[in-house]
């Protein structure tokens, strides 16, 4: 893994190209276990700078209907943590930069240190934790440090200045800014909370800031790329994969083209 690009490398490269990085989310095991690695290869080929490999979970309180339905299908097909790690490995070997997004229950069950060790060995660069806030993350901070993984915590429009500072101080790689007060899912408009949140976050850190939740169209990407360092696409990509890998690659290409208007 010594030649593998880190998240910092990805953001430096995107910055030198005067564009935002594109991050694509899919659940592991979707559209099924057999084709999941192909789905990630398709979005990497389409131009995603970072792929977010979601660990499907039975009780995803932050996910909207599209992502939950996809994760349910993956679970029904028998997707396990070991499958997810194999997909991370495949994505990394394909030249992608994978990070994992997971609720905390699967990690605690697997063992926090063992999870970090196996994720790092598979070529994972970091972990996004939608229901683990830094206040509860001592064990994860230790394990991620030991195994050289980045820690991507979320900030939200409701975060107080104190919490914003505390959260970004615990982050590495990038900061995930939730664009709205809501769950995942493509929306007609991104809303006005995101630019303000990014601006507030910038005052606290030099880390890159990615904006997610609700991104669907090249127009959304262009809008977010004008003020954030990364644009995160999830539900729209899940829907595209359901139509076929070619459609997903095409969507990623169109979104990637829109990242350069910063």
């Amino acid at each position, binding site marked *: 893994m010594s030649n593998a690009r880190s998240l910092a490398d990805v953001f430096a490269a995107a910055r030198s190209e005067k564009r935002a990085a594109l991050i694509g989310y899919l659940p592991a095991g979707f559209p099924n276990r057999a084709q999941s690695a192909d789905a990630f290869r398709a979005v990497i080929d389409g131009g995603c700078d970072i792929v977010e490999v979601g660990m499907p979970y039975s009780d995803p309180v932050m996910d909207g209907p599209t992502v939950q339905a996809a994760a349910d299908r993956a679970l029904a097909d028998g997707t396990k943590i070991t499958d997810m790690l194999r997909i991370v490995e495949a994505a990394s070997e394909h030249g992608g930069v994978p990070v994992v997004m997971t609720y905390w229950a699967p990690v605690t069950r697997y063992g926090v240190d063992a999870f970090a060790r196996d994720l790092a060995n598979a070529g994972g660069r970091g972990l996004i934790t939608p229901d683990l806030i830094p*206040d509860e993350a001592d064990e994860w901070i230790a394990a991620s440090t030991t195994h050289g993984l980045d820690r991507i915590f979320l900030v*939200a429009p409701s*975060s107080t200045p104190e919490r914003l500072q505390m959260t970004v101080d615990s982050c590495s790689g990038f900061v995930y800014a939730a664009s709205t007060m809501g769950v995942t899912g493509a929306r007609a408009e991104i809303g006005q909370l995101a630019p303000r949140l990014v601006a507030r976050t910038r005052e606290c850190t030099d880390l890159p800031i990615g904006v997610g939740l609700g991104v669907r169209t090249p127009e959304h990407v262009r809008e977010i790329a004008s003020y954030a360092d990364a644009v995160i696409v999830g539900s729209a990509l899940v829907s595209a994969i359901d139509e076929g890998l070619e459609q997903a690659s095409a969507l990623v290409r169109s979104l990637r083209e829109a990242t350069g208007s910063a």
Partner: protein
Amino acid sequence: MIGNSVPDQRGYYGPFGGRFIPEALVAAIEELTEFYEKAKVDPEFIAEYDELLRGYAGRPSLLYEAKRFSEHVGCRVLLKREDLNHTGAHKINNVLGQALLTKKMGKTRLIAETGAGQHGVATATAAALMGLECTVYMGEVDTDRQSLNVARMRLLGAEVVAVRAGSRTLKDAMNEAFRDWVSTVDYTHYCIGSVGGPHPFPMLVRDFNSVVGQEARQQCLDEFGALPDAVLACVGGGSNAIGIFAGFLNDEGVRLYGLEAAGDGAETDRTAATLTKGSVGVLHGSKSYVLQDEDGQTRESHSISAGLDYPGVGPEHSYLKDTGRATYLPVTDTEAMNAFSLLCRTEGIIPAIESSHALAGAVALAPELGPDATLLVNLSGRGDKDVATAGAWFDVIGVTRTT
């Protein structure tokens, strides 16, 4: 001692509890914690809450010696009659407190999850009383088996949303309520119905229900001149059990028993006996025992009782189990329904199927505790809502005609 020492500042009961939640909810949770910490020492709030309990919910509830039931069981059984509260269960104690807090916080809407519907009905009731909007999430499976309570909630002005995700039961209703809350937290309070969820919910739901244990303890002393030998309560999420246990935690001579819903048997996969069969994990915002697989995926639970059909349990129960202060035992559907029938026939009281698990615990423990023992059972709710389920179980639905 235990009751006073937990949770700590971070909401931990030993290794259990905490806040495993999206950042978007932290501000609301911290606001709630702050309001509650002030409210619980504010004489005005306490007076207002006490008046609601007395003048509206109908407290204190009776302590009743079930003599005919006792004869069958083989020792003296006292029933704490939470079924006589307004809306028919202990759930009203917690909901009136949380609704009052909601008003104080300036929020205008309550949301809730419900399994059997008792918490949903209680929330809809409190919302109507205090002029708050109300939405109740309920698994689709439960809306079918508890249609009477769905109608009650709607009559009280609440919107009832049938949740079709996952196993379509209580845990999925809770997921959906969390999603709603993330999106509407500015004006909505999520009125969690059991002693689960992120801190401060396990603490504040316990505190609001601790009136059950405090009353029962005093009534035992006043009416029978002694404390009971054992206190028994059913455990799903565990709010009624924590409520009655809270009165006796410091009485070392009083044994505490939580009776879990074992469904077809704790040794089978069709069970909801979390403390008997679960392992430590994270679910719905806190660390506790959970029914889960080797990957941390929540297992579907099963119980004839919608109110106990939940794969998690409040963190304080996990703490009481591991410290040995309370003992948790599984009760099958059959054992619970036999106890249900026994109380109906001996006392003229139709209990909730939830509470029947606690009654079954009395039947099972009596031989061990001996004929001189006094058992205090929390009759947490009445069985009107369960008549269709029980009628089907005992095959007594329909009219027998003679020609």
